């Protein structure tokens, strides 16, 4: 990729020559990306292009086959680095929410701060209620996840990911599993986070949203970054054939 650090912000995430194979199947074939502080980057591309795998490499949910990923100054590929420490700085939101069904909404959010001894139970609950306020679900604090709608679940999941006050948020197709009428409420929460200056990487199929919220859009195909740039450039004037072909299908 070429465009990238137009703004002079310090790099929050640096990816160098990242390769990832599942057995003999190489899904990431050398990725170089740099993401600055406060930048919102949307990753788009056809399914199987490696978008989600790239995202999951950033907090090492996937073992990295080759290359380097530096997050918040930590090289996550260095075995000496405590990955649990790094992950506390990186919140992640999943397509299928992955809320803990045996805990209440508040307990879901309190788990990490309490277990990692960042807060007492009382403090953690107070913080959880504040986070629920932010996503508009304070009244659901003591409900079980099973009683929530999809949109509500995803908002709780975002609140949970924010519990350790991360500097980076990763969204893995956060709205793909939602009914259309619930997409809006989740996007609104993400929009608010962007407005607060959170560094964010989003894998998304919502082209309109990517255009609206992204400082930069990265188009991936077949395990490589095919093209990247400002949304108006990438959507308005794509340079690569592969990009044009993809956009013609989804827009």
């Amino acid at each position: 990729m070429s465009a990238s650090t137009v703004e002079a912000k310090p790099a929050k995430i640096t990816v160098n020559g990242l390769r990832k194979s599942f057995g003999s199947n190489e899904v990431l074939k050398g990725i170089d990306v740099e993401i600055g502080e406060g930048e919102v980057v949307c990753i788009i591309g056809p399914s199987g292009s490696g978008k989600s795998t790239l995202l999951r490499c950033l907090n090492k949910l996937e073992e990295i086959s080759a290359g380097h990923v530096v997050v918040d100054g930590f090289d996550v590929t260095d075995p000496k680095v405590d990955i649990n420490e790094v992950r506390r700085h990186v919140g992640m939101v999943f397509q299928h929410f992955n809320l803990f069904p045996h805990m209440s909404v508040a307990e879901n959010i309190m788990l990490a701060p309490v277990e990692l001894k960042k807060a007492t139970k009382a403090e953690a609950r107070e913080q959880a209620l504040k986070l629920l306020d932010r996503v508009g679900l304070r009244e659901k604090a003591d409900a079980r996840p099973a009683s929530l709608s999809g949109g509500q679940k995803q908002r709780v999941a975002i609140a949970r990911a924010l519990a350790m006050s991360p500097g980076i948020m990763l969204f893995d197709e956060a709205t793909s599993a939602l009914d259309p009428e619930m997409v809006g409420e989740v996007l609104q929460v993400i929009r608010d986070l962007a407005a607060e200056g959170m560094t964010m990487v989003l894998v998304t199929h919502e082209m309109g949203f990517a255009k609206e919220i992204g400082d930069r859009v990265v188009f991936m195909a077949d395990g490589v970054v095919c093209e990247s740039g400002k949304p108006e450039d990438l959507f308005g004037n794509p340079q690569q054939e592969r990009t044009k072909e993809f956009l013609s299908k989804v827009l």
Partner: protein
Amino acid sequence: MSKMTGGPRGWLKVVTAALFGFMLLLGPVSPAFAQQSDSGVAGKKFVIGTDTTFAPFEFRKNGELTGIDMDLIRAIAKSEGFEVEIRSLGFNAALQALTSNQVDGVIAGMSITDERKKVYDFSEPYFESGIQMAIAKGNTDIKGYEDLRGKTVVAKTGSEGETYAKSIAEQYGFTVKSLDQSATMYESVKAGSAVAVFDDYPVLAYGVAQNNGLKTVTEKVPGGSYGFAVNKGKNTALLGAFNDGLAKMKANGEYDKLLNTYLADPTAEVPSNFWDLLVKSFPALMKGLGNTLLVTGISFVVAMALGLLAGFMKISSNIVVRGIATTFVNIFRGTPLLLWAFMFYFGLPQLTGVEISIWVAGVLTLSLNSGAYIAEIVRGGIQSVDPGQLEASRSLGLGYGKSMQKVVVPQAFKMMTPSLINQLIIMLKDSSLLLAIGFGELLYQGQQIYAANFRVTETLIIVGLIYFVAIMALTKLANYADRKFNK
């Protein structure tokens, strides 16, 4: 039930050997007293070894050792003024104890044979045994051996009765089928799968006296004589006193009276109806139930620990760790429970030279077997939890252990609970297999009862009902706990 050969009575020997092992654990057998005494027996105490169950010579009634041998030795001791301490060791174990001078004498329905005379000194015979045939009470067709043509009879594997039946089988044209236990033989005659049984006269006579549903139509065929034994050259005074006492009892009619108690009075002491049987057998059965529940409870705790460990090992990313757990599971799922009971109780002590308690053997058997199944339940439970749960927890910065503990295991446990309850119930029922090594659990107690009173069906119904009630209660309790803790 022959004692001539020392070879028959397969499983009973196993049981008696097991009980002997158990006795050893309860405390060392103290050395015998007064071995050198040739001058009278009055006031002395002798240790007498005997079998565990060989009705009507020795068996337990309401927990007390009774029978012809027991009554006889006690009566003689009384009349000759000495004391006896009875040790119910099992037949072979009692003879071993006699050889090693751990007991002073043995009375155990033992036939006097030339071979035994080489190592022991025998008293005058106190009982004339023999072989007799019995048929079902309602059978009026069979009046003698000649009516057996074309029919099937049963006899005990390796017994004198079998030898005798086979010796006349060709002459009278019948088939001999061999079975292992007296009770099973009698049941098959009553059920009609065989028309007659050939068994030791006293055992048969006692069974008939206990209303076991059989009758005799032919005379007994004289066989061996039973004697009281001491070690060769030892305890001559005791032997003399036995002979004196026996002679006195025969002279004053006490001897005949004693035999009649067991062999002639058809209604003596038999529980007359189901209720009576229930009341009489209840204390022993409750003791058995207690042992069943205790061994199941202990084993389940051990099995849970083993199962959790092996279950987690099975999902390990380390191939060696996984391999160890898989091997454990395959071995104990792939082999019968009973095999391990024998292995731990009989095999292990012989390999290591260390006696093993029957409780340890029982718990090892049940917990290793169940542990293998629980390992699979645990593995399945953990793997049934959506991998996204672990990912979500890890993405928050929680370590693997914490994530398992707080997120995955609680959910897995909820899914495992019905299978674990099931496994507990299977284990409780499987514990009955421990009767084969002589563990005094519920079904074992039932067997002891019908070995003495021959009321097989009713006793089994009672035992079955006790199991059923215990398991229903356990199921309700477990489901209640499940609802309470796994909301």
